[in-house]
C-alpha cells in the first residue's frame, strides 16, 4: 500500500527540524567543521546545518544507538556491589538517513533480536524517530546490487527532493507527528514524477555493481577454493579494521572494566570491535583461531555474504561503500567480490 504523502517546501524541511529541535535533539548529517566537504552524523545545532545532499558519512548512523564506546553499567566495590544500569532514555530524531543505512539499522535489529535477544539496542531504537532521505550515488555506492536502493524499512518518514521541496512519505504516526504545524501540500502529479525521476537517476548513475546475486555469492563462497584471492587481498591489507568500524551492518563488540581514580567504583564499557584485528579471536594460551591475515579477510566476506545470509536470510552488506572508501589500502568490496565471482565463473577447482 502506498504510504500517505505530503510535499514540504525547502523551508518547510527546516521548519520541521526546528520544531523537532524544540523538544528533543536531532541527529543528522552535517558538514564537518574540521574539513568542509565531508560529513558526519552529529547533533544538529541549527536547522540550516542539515546537509540534505550529502553523499556519505565516515561512520554510519548506527552510532546513535550503539556508541563506538559506551558504558553498560557502573559498579561499586561494596559487598554486595551496587550495579547501576547506564542507558539512554532521551527521545531523539535521527534525520537524513539514506535507504542503505536504513537497511543497516534493520540488519542490526535482526541480529540483536536473535534469542537470547539483547535489550540495549532495541530499547535505544525505540527512542528514535527516523527520517530517511533519498540520495545520489558516488563511485563507491553499489546499493542496487543489494536491493537496498529503495528501502524504506525502519523509517518513520522518508523524504525525496522534488522541484518545489521534498516529497514526504509517512510510514508511522511518529513520522506524521513531525509534520504537524508544518506547512505542507498535497502531492501533485509533478511531485510524484520528480521523485520517480530522482530514483531513476539514482540507479542510472550507479557505476559499481556486484556481478552476481547475493545468493550466488553465498554459494560461491561456500564452495571455497578461493584462498589465493584471500591471500592476494591480505598482501595489502593492514588489518586495521576500518572496513568493519565504518560498516552499518557490522555489530561485533568488546567489553572491559575500568576503575575510577578512587579505585572503589568503576564502569563496564563496551566498544566496537573488528574481526580484522589480530587479537579478535585470541584465547588463553595465546591460541589464535584466525592468526593469519587471509583467514581474517575470508572471514569478513564469509560473514557478510554467507554465514549471516544463511542464518538470518539477508546479506550483512547494504552496498553503502563505506568500507571501500575507508580502506587506505584500496581494498574494494565490489572489486574483490567480483574477482571471486569471476573466478567461480572460470570453473574453479575446490581446495
Amino acid at each position, binding site marked *: 500500500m502506498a504510504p500517505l504523502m505530503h510535499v514540504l517546501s525547502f523551508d518547510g524541511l527546516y521548519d520541521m527540524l526546528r520544531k523537532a529541535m524544540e523538544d528533543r535533539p536531532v541527529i543528522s548529517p552535517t558538514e*564537518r567543521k*574540521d*574539513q568542509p566537504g*565531508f560529513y*558526519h552524523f552529529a547533533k544538529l545545532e541549527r536547522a540550516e546545518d542539515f546537509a540534505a545532499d550529502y553523499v556519505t558519512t*565516515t*561512520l554510519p548512523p548506527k*552510532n546513535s544507538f550503539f556508541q*563506538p*564506546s559506551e558504558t553498560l553499567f557502573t559498579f561499586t566495590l561494596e559487598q554486595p556491589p551496587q550495579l547501576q544500569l547506564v542507558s539512554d532514555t532521551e527521545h531523539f530524531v535521527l534525520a537524513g538517513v539514506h535507504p542503505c543505512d536504513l537497511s543497516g539499522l534493520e540488519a542490526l535489529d535482526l541480529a540483536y533480536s536473535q534469542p537470547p535477544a539483547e535489550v540495549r539496542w532495541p530499547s535505544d531504537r525505540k527512542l528514535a524517530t527516523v527520517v530517511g532521505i533519498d540520495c545520489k550515488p558516488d*563511485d563507491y555506492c553499489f546499493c542496487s546490487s543489494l536491493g537496498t536502493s529503495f528501502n524504506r524499512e525502519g523509517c518513520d518518514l522518508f523524504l525525496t527532493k522534488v522541484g518545489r521541496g521534498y516529497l514526504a512519505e509517512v510510514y508511522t504516526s511518529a513520522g506524521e507527528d513531525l509534520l504537524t504545524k508544518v506547512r505542507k501540500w498535497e502531492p501533485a502529479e509533478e511531485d510524484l514524477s520528480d521523485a520517480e525521476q530522482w530514483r531513476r537517476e539514482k540507479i542510472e548513475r550507479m557505476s559499481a555493481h556486484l556481478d552476481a546475486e547475493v545468493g550466488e555469492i553465498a554459494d560461491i563462497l561456500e564452495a571455497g577454493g578461493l584462498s589465493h584471492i*584471500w*591471500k592476494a587481498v*591480505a*598482501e*595489502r*591489507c*593492514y*588489518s*586495521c*579494521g*576500518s572496513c568493519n*568500524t*565504518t560498516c552499518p551492518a557490522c555489530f561485533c563488540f568488546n567489553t572491559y572494566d*575500568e*576503575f575510577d*581514580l*578512587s*579505585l572503589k567504583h568503576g564502569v563496564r564499557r563496551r*566498544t*566496537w570491535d*573488528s574481526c580484522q*584485528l*589480530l*587479537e579478535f579471536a585470541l584465547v588463553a594460551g595465546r591460541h589464535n583461531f584466525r*592468526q*593469519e*591475515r*587471509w*583467514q*581474517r579477510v575470508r572471514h569478513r566476506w564469509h560473514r557478510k555474504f554467507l554465514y549471516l545470509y544463511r542464518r538470518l536470510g539477508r546479506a550483512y552488506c547494504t552496498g553503502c561503500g563505506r568500507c571501500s*572508501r*575507508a580502506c*587506505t*589500502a*584500496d581494498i574494494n568490496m565490489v572489486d574483490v567480490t567480483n574477482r571471486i565471482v569471476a573466478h567461480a565463473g572460470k570453473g574453479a577447482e575446490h581446495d
Partner: protein
Amino acid sequence: MTISPKPKVAFFDFACCEGCQLTVLQLDETLLELLDHVDVVTWREVMTGESESYDIAFCEGSITRERDVERIKHIRETAGILVTLGSCAGIGCHNAVRNIWPSEELLEDVYGSRTVVSDIIPARPITAVVPVDYQVLGCPISLFEFVTVFKHILTGKKYYLPNQPVCVECKLNDYLCVYEKGMICLGPVTRCGCNAICTSLGDACHGCRGLIDNANLNAMVKVLEDMPKLHPIMDRVARNHRLTREQIRRKLAVYNSWPELKLEEGAAHGE
C-alpha cells in the same frame, strides 16, 4: 585487592627529553588523587632526596651508555614493579635512529678528538635490557594510558598494550582520515592507545607508539608506491608526497629503529 600499605614510587630518567615526566605533572589534580594511593620517594625532576628502596619504579628514556645498563639493572633488582614511560623507554624512539652510524664517528662529529663520553653504545629501549612489568608508550606518553596503567598497577591487573592500529581510534572517534586531506599517515601500522591525538588535530600519525605486532609493512610500501592507482583521494596524496621506498623506510625508522627496521618483515598474510 590493592597493594598495601602504600607502595613507594620512584621516577627515574635516562636519555630522553623528559617530556614524559612533564606530561605526568600535567595531570595536576588527577595526579594528586593518584598520589593518594602511593608515596613518592624519588623524583629527581621534582624533588630533592632519594630513597634506596621503592616498590614501583617509573623509568623514562633510552639506554645509551654502558653505565645506563648498570643503573637500570640495579633499578630492576630494587623495584618490585618496573614501568617504562614513553617510547624512548619502550621502543627506543628516535634515539635509536643514530644506531646506523658507529658511536666513534658520532662522538668525533660532536666533540672532536676530546673524549667527553666514552661508553656510548647503540641506543636501545629499557625493554631491550631488562624485563618490564608495565609499559606506557607515546612521545610523549598518553596521559590516558598512564592513568590506566597506574590503576592497573594499584589493582594488580596486567596491562596489555593495545595491539590495534591507530585507525581503530580514528574511527571510534569519528575523525576524518587524513589521507582524505592528502597526507601520509602511519596510523595503519602504528599501535594505538593515544586516542588518535595527532589525527584528531588534523596531523598525520608519525608512528610514535611503534609498530603493532604483525604490522603489514609490505602493504605500506606497496600502497604508498602505487598511490596514483588507488582511490581518487590518493591523487592528492600522490601529488604532495611521492615517496620512494627508501623515504618510506626512513619515515618508518623515525620511531622504529630498534631493532633495525627491515621492510621485508611483517609478513604479508601473517604467517
